[in-house]
């Protein structure tokens, strides 16, 4: 019973293929349940036959006679035929589901996702040209299909948000596409699903489905330039950001920084997590990350920049202020 209860816990969760909220994922879950039930029945049947074969009462000698063999031939042939039919049925069900998923309507918008080691570079497109860039967190409008253009900057990654859709690889040298459509608002977690190096385990992202109004507001906020720092501490932090190696890799639109190696930080204060889904975004976690990224996510490409404690306080206040 305890095992059963533990099993059921997999049915909930923001990163579960069984807790589905996306159009694709719903179709997939139906197929999965169908196949699982059919296969479970087949397995049970085989087990029952096995048990009976092993445990039934027998006469003294082993039956090696033509009559028994003929009967067995008929039964085995029938079983093989049944197997072939079941397999054919499951294959047809699989094809049908493939068509259902691929047949979803025109995309309302396009987002370019580029996999980097070990984070997601997200570029929102407007009329085919890049509008603004963010990282690791994707907002989409509820109930409308969003097309993701998947590319990779380095190695093979895989974009997987199980609650919304199946996964699709990001392969260098090709552009793959994935259509997402969330049917209910919520935060859906995903993770890179193709081994991409040392921090593959910490390459998560979230897809947040907003209702139409919230989504438009978010879009407007994100495409705007960064907020000017209001408090003195944040202002000092901006000076640290621009004077230290930070600005060479990161960009905050509205300041002279122009680095494109690392994630765009223009609105980092508005994101739920940092470090590609590693930690909740708070001022403290920002400070911890900036102070020592290599202990938190060893091997990632952000170096440990030596800062005094005043500088660290200031720059974390600045980051937090970038809503």
């Amino acid at each position, binding site marked *: 019973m305890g095992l059963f209860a533990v099993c059921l816990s997999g049915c909930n969760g923001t990163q579960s293929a069984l807790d589905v909220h996306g159009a694709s994922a719903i179709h997939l879950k139906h197929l999965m349940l169908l196949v699982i039930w059919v296969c479970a029945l087949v397995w049970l049947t085989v087990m029952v036959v096995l048990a009976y074969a092993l445990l039934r009462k027998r006469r003294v000698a082993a039956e090696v006679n033509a009559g028994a063999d003929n009967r067995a031939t008929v039964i085995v042939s029938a079983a093989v035929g049944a197997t072939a039919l079941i397999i054919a049925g499951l294959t047809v069900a699989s094809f049908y589901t493939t068509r259902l998923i691929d047949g979803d309507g025109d995309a309302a918008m396009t987002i370019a996702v580029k996999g980097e080691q070990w984070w997601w570079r997200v570029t929102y497109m407007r009329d085919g040209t890049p509008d603004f860039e963010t990282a690791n967190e994707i907002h989409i409008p509820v109930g409308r299909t969003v097309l993701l253009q998947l590319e990779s900057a*380095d190695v093979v990654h895989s974009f997987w948000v199980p609650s919304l859709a199946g996964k699709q690889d990001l392969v*260098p040298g090709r552009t793959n596409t994935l259509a997402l459509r969330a049917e209910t608002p919520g935060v859906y977690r995903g993770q890179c699903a193709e081994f991409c190096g040392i921090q593959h385990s910490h390459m998560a992202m979230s897809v947040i489905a907003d209702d139409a109004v919230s989504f438009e507001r978010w879009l407007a906020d994100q495409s705007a330039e960064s907020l000017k720092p209001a408090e003195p501490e944040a202002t000092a932090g901006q000076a640290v950001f621009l*004077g*230290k*190696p930070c*600005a*060479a*890799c990161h960009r905050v639109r509205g300041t002279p920084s122009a680095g494109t*190696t690392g994630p765009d930080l223009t609105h980092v204060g508005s994101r739920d997590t940092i470090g590609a889904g590693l930690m909740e975004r708070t001022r403290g976690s920002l400070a911890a990350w900036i102070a*020592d990224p*290599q*202990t938190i996510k*060893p*091997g990632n*490409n952000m*170096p*440990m*920049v*030596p800062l005094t404690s005043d500088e660290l306080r200031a720059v974390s206040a600045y980051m937090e202020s970038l809503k």
Partner: protein
Amino acid sequence: MVLALLGWIDQPRKFRVDPAITAELDQIRLMPNGIGGAPPEIDFALGQPYENDSYNLSQGKRLYTWFGCSSCHGDGRGAAGPSFLDGWWLYGPEMVSIVASIRDGRPHGMPAFQNRMTIEQIWQLAGYVQTIGAYRAKVSAPSRNDAKHTRPSENRAPAAIIFDEGPVGVDPEQGPNP
């Protein structure tokens, strides 16, 4: 001999260098003319990782792309800035000189990257730049790019191929006292 071979191949990956060590790495001691000098002793204590360790060299290669070195130095062949491939070193091929060039800049256009890269990144990049102009390839040098590949790989001893063509991309005002 087998053990020596094994020891040579052994490449432990260090992702996090202690701040005390990075502070030491900043203490290069240059000659007055800015050419050559003494590396900090910590470099030897660590086993000269930025010259020999393949992980550091490959990180250096990524830094070369990320920090826009190609805009002046091209793919190593040189453009506005001098070439690395040809094996002619304006300030000498030692690590200290290259680290100083990147960290403090040089006359006639090389910017200082002190405030744009950490000292550890500078050492990684310097080790990589050394392999671009190496006359004899190291085993741990990077191989071909996973991108457009327009010049000999670092593990094919590029300088040995181009050395005889002479120095490329030297600023006319460079003269005997740079």
